[in-house]
């Protein structure tokens, strides 16, 4: 009998029962809640007069439609305000821990989970948000769910699930200097496609993954959903344990020792069998830029928009106002957004700041903004003087939130505007109706802000 994958181990350690119909009841250790996908779940509980199974496993934070500037003035959009107020009221009445908008630890739900130690290796974690896959970077089984399932977890601590298949994406060798986790995951999506991981839990392995920091691993797992898989996973190693140690909600003392002993078992066995294995060489990966309206429409910075014979790219190219054969380096930008649950952690901000230090954004850039992922990230960055570097270069330095990744608040593109964005989706209208999004890494976004066009940040050519 072959060994078990990390996914198998996490699945089996949370299996409450196997039903006759092929489904299973899976126990959930942590539910993260935000304002957008939870109100109807709370309403459902009220209507059916049901209560929370274990209220302390739920933690909430408003992040999607809160303002990123002048927060002291409150939320001006009455509809957004009602949604955030509703979250506050629901958390108060159901006694759920919440980091309210003005809490110094508030931030994007997928940034604060790991940062606070609310995300731990070996856990099952859900949230009504597809980027819950982020938390798999810590060796947890984490995936996004719909609002009906949010209510299900609130009231039963379980989910009815069917086991996914196992996929291993093995990235051999080491990334070249200056190549980021974002470039890596964009290259992976480009290779397997946005539906390539549908039906699978993807484990990322290989030397290039092992060499990543926790921030980088979170970037990779975050965008697993853009490769079609609900859950991304990375085995626990010393990097994971060092990251978790000392986090506010991480276990302490004797429990810590006990937990670490267990967490060290959270790797796929050497003889584990995967349903699919994809291998890549890290050395081949260059800075990546998306050119279309799906994350799989991606190419490296030195490339050009591909020619396709069957016209399948036409709607995307029309929307993006681009033509096949155009060089990526000839694309001029209007706005630059550095932030989102993909790329708003301290390492992301450091890498971007390194690029902009001592420079000014191009005159053609209407707005360049940095939105830290959480209060603690913002504070850390300010201690390191990164805020000053960005502000001096002409960037706006904002308060934490999802911001222009999905433009539910006031931060958005106007019709026709083109943005270099460190977020995760380049869908039509994602950053504002008619807005055009190019997904890139933080250093690539920073270099685009300075230059006004996309440039290869790994070379020195952009320094002018």
């Amino acid at each position, binding site marked *: 009998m072959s060994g078990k994958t990390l996914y198998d181990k996490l699945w089996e350690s949370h299996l409450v029962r196997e039903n006759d119909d092929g489904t299973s009841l899976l126990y959930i250790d942590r539910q993260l809640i935000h304002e957008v996908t939870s109100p109807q779940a709370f*309403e459902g509980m009220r209507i059916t007069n049901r209560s929370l199974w274990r209220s302390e496993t739920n933690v909430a934070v408003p992040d999607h439609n809160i303002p990123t500037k002048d927060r002291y003035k409150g939320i001006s959009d009455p*509809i957004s305000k009602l949604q955030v107020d509703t979250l506050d009221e629901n958390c108060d009445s159901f006694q759920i821990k919440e980091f309210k908008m003005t809490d110094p630890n508030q931030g994007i739900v997928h940034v604060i989970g790991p940062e606070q130690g609310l995300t731990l290796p070996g856990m099952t974690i859900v949230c009504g948000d597809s980027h819950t896959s982020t938390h798999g970077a810590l060796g947890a089984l984490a995936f996004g769910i719909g609002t009906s399932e949010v209510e299900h977890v609130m009231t039963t601590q379980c989910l009815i699930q069917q086991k996914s298949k196992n996929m291993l994406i093995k990235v051999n060798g080491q990334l070249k200097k200056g190549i980021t986790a974002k470039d890596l995951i964009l290259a992976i999506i480009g290779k397997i496609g946005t539906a390539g991981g549908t039906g699978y839990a993807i484990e990322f392995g290989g030397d290039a993954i092992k060499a990543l920091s926790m921030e980088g691993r979170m970037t990779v797992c975050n965008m697993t959903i853009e490769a079609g898989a609900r859950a991304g996973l990375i085995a626990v190693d010393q990097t994971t344990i060092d990251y978790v140690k000392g986090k506010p*909600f991480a276990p302490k003392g004797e429990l810590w020792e006990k937990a670490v002993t*267990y967490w060290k078992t959270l790797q796929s066995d050497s003889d584990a069998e995967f349903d699919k294995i994809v291998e890549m060489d890290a050395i081949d990966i260059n800075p990546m830029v998306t050119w279309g309206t799906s994350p799989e429409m991606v190419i490296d910075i030195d490339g050009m928009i591909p020619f396709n014979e069957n016209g399948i790219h036409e709607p995307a190219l029309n929307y993006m106002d681009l033509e096949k054969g155009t060089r990526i380096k000839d694309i001029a930008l209007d706005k630059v957004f550095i932030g989102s649950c993909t790329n708003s952690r301290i390492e992301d901000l450091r890498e971007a700041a390194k690029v902009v230090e001592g420079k000014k954004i191009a005159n053609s850039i209407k707005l360049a903004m940095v939105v830290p992922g959480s209060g603690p990230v913002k504070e850390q960055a300010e201690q390191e003087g990164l805020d000053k570097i960005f502000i001096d270069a002409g960037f706006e330095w904002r308060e934490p939130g999802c911001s222009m990744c*999905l433009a539910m608040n006031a931060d958005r593109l106007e019709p026709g505007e083109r943005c270099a964005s460190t977020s995760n989706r380049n*869908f039509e209208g994602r950053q504002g109706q008619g807005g055009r999004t190019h997904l890139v890494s933080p250093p690539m976004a920073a270099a685009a802000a300075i230059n006004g066009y996309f440039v290869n940040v790994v070379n020195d050519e952009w320094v002018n």
Partner: protein
Amino acid sequence: MEKFCTFTGIVAPLDRANIDTDAIIPKQFLKSIHRSGFGPNLFDEWRYLDHGEPGIDCSNRPLNQGFILNKDPYQQASILLTRENFGCGSSREHAPWALAEFGFKTLIAESFADIFYNNCFKNGILPITFSKDIIQFLFEKAEENTGFTFTVNLEDQILIDSSGNVFEFKLEVYRKNALLNGLDDIGLTLSHENEIIVFEKNHQIMQPWLFTS
């Protein structure tokens, strides 16, 4: 949830791949704290020529006449035919809420994104997958016959067109039962309450650090 019954409906062909949930229901409508009211804003950016915001009466907005759901007779469509990876992106259950409220009971595609697929069954929508060839055949059929209909029979797992041609589809038993019986998942899970409690006690022994707060 209402039980899924056999019905006959118009098939609207929406010929695009990778239609994401942002396109199905744009983010500004997600500010609602209710489960209903999303139907008029389904595919908002494709369906209307102006910018939609929550609370605006859609009956007076300028329609994009080129969009399939604005063309006669597709305003009455209850079956959506589309390409691969439908429903990718955000986990928002507002997407199936909007589709159901418009009147869609069945979606036909080469493939669906996982979270969206799951959300459909919680809302009485039947997503059916067919091979690329059959999907292509159905698009050609829709092109030739404006407003062609299918009878959707979930019990027998078949679609029947007006000429009597039958297309069989596959579906997991539990998903079929959930739709046919309109089951309350939470009630079903709570019927296993004792097993959850037993699991939880054991889980606490194995991983006590998860039970400290």
